[in-house]
């Protein structure tokens, strides 16, 4: 029998974790192999579908951290633990831990861009022996836009965590500045072998990659994750196509040697 990829399955919301007024993590029941950086199509009949990245992987669960921005996501925010959502996936390639094992790893993430890399950071922060050292540079607009605030203290125990905000409007004493400002000063043993992951808004990604290259990172050691409009997640609808690449199938994670040719 042919597999019908378009028909979603129902999954129960196990828990809702509120980060900000606009961003919640929905912990969904899910059994099966998943990689951080992959995504699901989450849907609510009548409102439509939205691609959402995997922001965490647990025993029998997958975390989806959703920003409330439109038709589908507004409706998802009306749901509580015990309710159900339709999902299909996982789609996309996701991050491959093997690309980073044994290396010094720097993760640069902005805003909701922290979601897709959270699984990677969580993995290497809890298995510090697998890398030669992990640095996370995470940037948010302001202190109250911070996601995953409970994770940072835990990660800090094993890794170098640089948390920064564009503006400290509440005088919390947090570092102020763009993520790119922390790249030139990165202390690394062998930058030519170090790996980096960059995820965030397009402008931030462009400048962060440039700063990494200036710092001495090699192009083939940098990975980026791309976002585009997606309707199918299956290489059919064409919305995510850039050049000869389908972001949903070939990505969303790309090595920069390939990612740099993704020009709209």
């Amino acid at each position, binding site marked *: 029998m042919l597999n*019908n990829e*378009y*028909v979603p399955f129902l999954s129960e919301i196990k828990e809702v974790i509120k980060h900000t007024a606009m961003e919640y993590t929905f912990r969904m029941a899910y059994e099966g192999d998943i990689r951080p950086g992959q995504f699901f199509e989450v849907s609510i009949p009548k409102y439509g579908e939205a691609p959402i990245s995997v922001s965490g992987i647990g025993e029998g669960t997958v975390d989806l951290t959703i920003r409330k921005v439109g038709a589908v996501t507004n409706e998802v925010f009306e749901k509580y633990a015990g309710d159900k959502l*339709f999902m299909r996936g996982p789609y996309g390639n996701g991050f491959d831990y093997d690309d980073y094992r044994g290396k010094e790893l720097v993760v640069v993430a902005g805003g909701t861009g922290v979601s897709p890399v959270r699984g990677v950071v969580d993995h290497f922060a809890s298995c510090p022996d697998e890398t030669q050292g992990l640095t996370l540079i995470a940037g948010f607009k302001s202190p109250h836009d911070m996601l995953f605030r409970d994770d940072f203290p835990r990660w800090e125990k094993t890794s170098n965590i640089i948390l920064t905000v564009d503006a400290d409007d509440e005088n919390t004493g947090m570092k102020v500045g763009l993520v790119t400002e922390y790249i030139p000063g990165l202390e690394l043993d062998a930058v030519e072998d170090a790996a980096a992951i960059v995820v965030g808004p397009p402008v931030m990604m462009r400048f962060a990659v440039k700063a990494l290259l200036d710092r001495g990172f090699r192009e083939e050691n940098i990975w980026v994750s791309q976002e585009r409009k997606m309707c199918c997640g*299956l290489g059919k609808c*064409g919305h995510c196509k850039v*050049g000869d690449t389908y972001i949903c199938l070939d990505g969303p994670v790309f090595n920069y040697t390939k990612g740099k040719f993704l020009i709209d």
Partner: protein
Amino acid sequence: MGYILSPEAADRLIASLADDCLVFAPKRFVGGAVFSDLDCIRYGEVKTAGEIVFDQKSDYSFKEILTPVCQALFYFTEDQIKEADAPEKGAVVFLRSCDLHAVKRLDDIYLNNGEEDYYYRRLRDRVKFVVMGCSEAFDSCFCVDMGTNVPEGYNMSMEPAEGGFAIDCRDAELDELLGSLADRECDVEPSHVEETKTRVKIPEGLTQDVMRSKIWDEYDGRCIACGRCNFVCPTCTCYTMQDLFYTENGRVGERRRVQASCMVDGFTDVAGGGSYRKKNGERMRFKTLHKALDYKQRFGYQMCVGCGRCDDVCPEYISFSRILNRLGDMMEEVNTDAE
């Protein structure tokens, strides 16, 4: 096996095909053209051979049979889903050589780009193709330059000949039917053209660098982003998902997909007002390179089949074949700039 059929026998052939499947062919819709009260030639169901238009190009392609303009995927209530039924009948589709080659493009996107598309597969498996020979090319055709002029892999061919129809049959089931209807058997090969008035040359060394050409900007003003060129194209496959509800409280509805166009506003819009390729010239560049470069890099052969329909339909008289022919100049322009 080749056959000659009288017009009456051809009518009987179509009628008996129509007994257990849907027969789709280019038909005349009187006064159905988009801009005027001219007739429109497009696909519809036929019951007789006489209804099939052999001497004009169809304004729209056959693709709607395999990739419907609007296709229900499933029906839903709040927590239940029921898959849309497969069509009860198979189909026989009349089409020209260029369109037959376009089927291979649809197959590669829907069956070989990632997992198989369930809805496409279940239609595709039940379609037979009848190629309509071309004795002469129409003005805007450039199939020869795109390598699609010789039909391949059809179940049957059919074209007017000797006051009736000449048929080449490659399908055992159809052969049986034809044996009892035909006036006589003889060798038949579907006609195909060897030259076209419109000529197209896509440069050998075409690369992504051509994106930087200034020539694309010309289309910012000329193209009105109506998307007609996509909708008539037999190789365009994009669609958008849509949810529809039937009842006031929205608890019952359907999810469907509708054909989409990369030339039309909204194709790349993401939440929060972001969008890529805002200018029409950028969209023209995207469409052109999809047809002439990207697809080839991915699948190893050119996507555009040279049917010329996009040239015929454009309300702004933009010629796609001319754009393809300008790619050489554009490459030269960007190469010179780079020096």
